[in-house]
């Protein structure tokens, strides 16, 4: 997004707060956050929705929503949390744009396995990802948020607006399903 003032050097982690100068415009902030977080948000969304195009759409919706709702944010410095919440929930629901889709397609319709599936530990990786893809949507969301984004249980509960107990339950069931796929139990 050329011509716009950047607020911070490029970073790679999602959710890294960037202190926004009080005189920063909406366009400046959106441009900066886009540079910082677009790739990571797409990767996150992709882990939930399976196909890249849908993940890109979800993230694009989040940024346009941030742009549109800028004046309603209580704290502009929390914009990154708003984006993350939009993406995580938007991956489960796209009601905002009236583009309702199934988020969880059969493996036959999913994208072909990546080259990493045939790496040294390819069989395990494929089995783990197949198990994660077959999880019910809510469990998959929680697994991605807990074990890819390293979010605390309370934070997951807050974003998804469910109880911490539910987060624990979804997390345990999701891990158990993966464990069964790997035949690892205790």
């Amino acid at each position, binding site marked *: 997004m050329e011509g716009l003032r950047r607020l911070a050097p490029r970073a790679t982690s999602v959710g890294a707060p960037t202190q926004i100068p009080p005189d920063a415009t909406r366009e400046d902030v959106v*441009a900066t956050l886009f540079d910082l977080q677009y790739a990571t948000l797409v990767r996150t969304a992709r882990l939930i929705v399976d196909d890249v195009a849908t993940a890109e759409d979800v993230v694009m919706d989040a940024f346009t929503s941030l742009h549109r709702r800028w004046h309603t944010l209580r704290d502009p410095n929390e914009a990154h949390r708003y984006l993350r919440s939009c993406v995580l929930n938007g991956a489960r629901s796209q009601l905002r744009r009236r583009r309702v*889709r*199934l988020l969880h397609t059969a493996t036959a319709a999913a994208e072909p396995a990546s080259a990493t599936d045939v790496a040294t530990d390819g069989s395990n990786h494929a089995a783990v990802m197949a198990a994660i893809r077959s999880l019910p949507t809510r469990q998959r969301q929680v697994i991605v948020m807990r*074990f890819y984004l390293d979010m605390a249980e309370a934070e997951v509960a807050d974003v998804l607006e469910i109880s911490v107990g539910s987060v624990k339950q979804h997390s345990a069931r999701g*891990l158990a399903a993966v464990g069964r796929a790997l035949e690892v139990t205790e």
Partner: protein
Amino acid sequence: MTPHPDLAAIVHAALEQEAQAMTIDTPSAANRLNRELETRRRNPATTAGLVAAAIIALLALAFWSPWSPKGTQPAGPGPASSPSALSDAPQWPHELNLSTGAVTEVPRTWLPDGYEFGTTLAISPDGERVAVGACLLEPRGCDGESTLSVVSVDTGARTPVSVPPGGGVPGSTWAPDGRHLVYQLSEMPNGIGELYAYDIATGRSTRLTDIPIESASWWSLTWSVTSDGTVLHDRPTTGWSSAGWNVWQVPVGGGAATIRLRDARAPEAMPDGRIAFVVPREGTWEGSAVAIAERDGSLRTVATAASGIGRVISSPDSRRLAYTDGDRTWVIDLATGEKRDVAAGAAAQWVDEETLLILP
């Protein structure tokens, strides 16, 4: 059974590996975002015209409702002959006159304070009421709390529709008798979307579907009500869209459901008794074509998708269909086969023979 202590690490590593395998083209995405934001910026350039139209519409409500099918057609030139798109993306539900291209925004007074429009905006058959699905703006818009209410077009009085607790309302449709509102309730936390019929007179909801939780993921059904009070709705054959879709039928008062059409989704009960529907496409919710089930049971394709077809709705005289292909609304004349791209957004309802209600 306690998960293996290394399992969390295994899952983390797998997710990290899967994510990093993706190639992300951020510059191209930035260009796309710029284009989308530019499109939104262009809309305010026409705000003067749209605000004027909205003010006129609001003033007109004091004397006459433009939202009633009984209302007068907007004054203006005769039917337009241009085949090109007549309307481009006001970011607000609006009425589009197909002949004149006139756009009239839905009154903002229909929304409760702090809410935005959700997926439902349905005018009752008598034109006197509107079912409004609205989402609480903060903190998560339509990903969070939503409500359903019936608003009087003349007075603006709002009556909430009491729905079973714990869920959001993705959409609703009037039965042709105007006595029932059929809606889908997305029940948290599983997100199962059962259909309910709300009796306007009694305020009671009757559940119409019973989708097995173990085979369900989450989806929004599409449904329509025939003139004899039969609810047609689609449903995937398993929890996954790629497995196929069938159209089911169930009485609006509740009862046993049976399959009406196989390999079909998004049914639309046409006033003349035919059923328009979307031909499913494997692996995706959007379909490959629009088809009609004739009264004699035969099927014929009337339009094929340029992108992917979401749903189809019939004009009151059953002579035209409006359907959503990608992000655009198209209208096809069933007698001539002529079709044209008329607007950005999704066609929600035919207000009358020449007017569509468009949801952006």
